[in-house]
């Protein structure tokens, strides 16, 4: 499929995405005007702490937001196909077209495979669902194909496992099975939301390796969402750093992690312990992450920022200013860089 599309071509473009939730305590702006691009065959890492809006971003792309959420009118999410484009934000979540995209062209895997699986159906039954829905294939054909996929993702005794129930599999095996189902339709984009957070490190390493192999094999783009900077360093080509619904910094992974520009990214990198360098005291970021109900105005990080500019950061929201090739920082410290 889509043989004319090349690795590196633009696949998904998110422009000015804003998402609000209606709650009893008021309107929460979970995502506030974010923009980024995903390229074919490459991995975009989205890193952020709780309340950063990273999962809401993923659910917006899938159009799987709950009824209490609303995608703001100015938001545009565009999926580029080899034969044209489709604007996801213009589709109804339950439309035929959106259902074709969801699970077909864009698939998703989640953090805890135990809660994403139903306990009462076999693994095979659930993992076969996307391909049965999207490929109009016979049940026997699907079974044969899925057993092959389970084997491909490294599940020993795949035919046996196909007939077992989720509780009979370990956490690592469940994550492999969920991945097998997600990629069975050969999606152009896989969204992985904290796929290794619930797993032990040795299993995490295996899943990261598996995703890398599958990406190479299927030329698949990945949006990898995590709170873990070390994991993002290992998997992503480009990264987006989010805080309270806004993008603070984005750029090539090496640039952002080696040469961080935004005060938030810098603080975050100085706050994490590293095995190789335990001599220095960690520099904690002052204060706590504000509640999404009391989101600070202006730059959302200004309440904790060491370099806050009085009269500027609390009042105005910075644009994304270029700080290097494909590298942007949403901080007034970098405003003047724009002129040269």
């Amino acid at each position: 499929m889509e043989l004319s599309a090349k690795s590196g071509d633009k696949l998904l473009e998110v422009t000015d995405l804003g998402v609000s939730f209606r709650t009893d305590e008021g309107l929460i702006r979970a995502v506030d005007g974010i923009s980024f691009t995903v390229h074919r065959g490459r991995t975009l890492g989205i890193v952020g702490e709780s309340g950063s809006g990273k999962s809401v971003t993923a659910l917006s792309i899938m159009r799987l937001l709950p009824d209490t959420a609303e995608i703001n009118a100015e938001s545009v999410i565009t999926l580029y196909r080899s034969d044209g484009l489709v604007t996801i934000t213009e589709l109804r979540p339950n439309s035929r077209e959106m259902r074709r995209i969801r699970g077909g062209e864009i698939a998703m895997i989640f953090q805890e495979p135990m809660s994403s699986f139903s306990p009462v159906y076999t693994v095979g039954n659930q993992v076969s669902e996307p391909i049965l829905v999207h490929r109009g294939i016979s049940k026997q054909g699907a079974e044969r194909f899925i057993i092959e996929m389970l084997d491909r993702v490294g599940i020993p005794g795949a035919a046996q496992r196909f007939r077992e129930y989720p509780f009979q599999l370990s956490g690592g095996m469940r994550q492999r099975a969920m991945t097998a189902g997600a990629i069975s339709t050969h999606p152009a984009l896989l969204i992985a939301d904290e796929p290794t957070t619930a797993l032990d490190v040795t299993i995490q390493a295996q899943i990261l390796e598996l995703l890398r192999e599958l990406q190479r094999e299927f030329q698949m783009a990945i949006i990898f969402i995590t709170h873990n900077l070390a994991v993002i360093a290992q998997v992503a080509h480009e990264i987006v750093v989010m805080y309270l619904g806004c993008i603070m910094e984005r750029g090539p992974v090496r640039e952002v992690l080696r040469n961080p520009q935004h005060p938030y990214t810098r603080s975050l990198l100085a706050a994490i312990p590293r095995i190789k360098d335990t001599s220095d005291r960690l520099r904690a970021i002052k204060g706590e992450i504000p509640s999404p109900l009391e989101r600070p105005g202006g730059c959302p990080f200004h309440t904790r920022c060491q370099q806050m500019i009085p009269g500027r950061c609390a009042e105005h929201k910075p644009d994304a200013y270029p700080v290097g090739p494909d590298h942007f920082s949403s901080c007034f410290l970098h405003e003047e860089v724009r002129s040269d």
Partner: protein
Amino acid sequence: MTDVPDLLTVSDLKVYFPMRRDLFGSTQGIVRAVDGVSFAVRKGETLGLVGESGSGKTTTGLAILRALEPTSGRVTFRVNEQTVDVTALRGKELRQFRRHMQMIFQDPYSSLNPRMTVRDIIAEPLVASGLAKGSEVDERVRETASRCRLDLEYLRRFPHAFSGGQRQRIGIARALVSNPEFVVCDEPVTALDVSIQAEILNLLMDLQRDLGLTYLLIAHDLSVVAYISHRVAVMYLGQLMEIAPTRELFRAPRHPYTEALMSAVPEVDPDLPLKPVQLRGEIPDPADPPSGCRFHTRCRYVQDVCRSEVPALKELSTGHMAACHFAEELELRGVRGLPPAP
């Protein structure tokens, strides 16, 4: 720290759980969650205890504190120039002894009673053990709270109003209010956001320095363990695989499981790609552990002897012990680019 006396010793600790599987509740086997673990913790040090899920690290911590009854083995504690056999304490003796050993829990959201004020939560261990009465309680609570960098204004409030970092500070204050010598910290920063973790880790280190505390730090995040531990013990399927000074363990592990574990830890550097040692298969069922060395089913260096004989925990150099038949011969890979201990 070699001249410092041991505060706590654990000898051949075993914790077995009966497994009930059938409808009538009859025992269908035994899970050997902790199966013959021995180590000592020196006064004023942090011993990190690492291992994957099911390794028995939390069970070990709970059994030391007698929050869980050990099946067998001995735990001794040095207090007021005397050695107390913690495993032999009963009833009132045990209740009174608890003030010497406390615990900090992983999840600050579920470990604080939502119906108690912060003041009452922190005061509870004092009141329960009868250590202080009346205004003395308030004085101790206020002193401990400010040590833990809690705003004294918060004492009148309920815990739901607080963020994860503040709740964890309340949990730490509660653990420290009875002036314990020893604290088990079970995944103290795992549930916290990255930007909050550093604050709590630094607080734990400051409290150790100021109060002469001794910690057993249970954590799965090896970077956290490396940051605050003086020594690290590695567990696998209920047994100790290796124990060594932190830097030495990370630089030159002597047990193949430690090597595999460390090789799987990602670094915040895109130019140091992960090269994990491939572990065969999955963690075996702790109700039916492998014969011989428990790690042999997954070890890439396995030999016949490993399947039949349990390796002893041998001292290879000062303070560095590993339970592997080939610990002296194997050349194992540690963390890349880590300089030797100063």
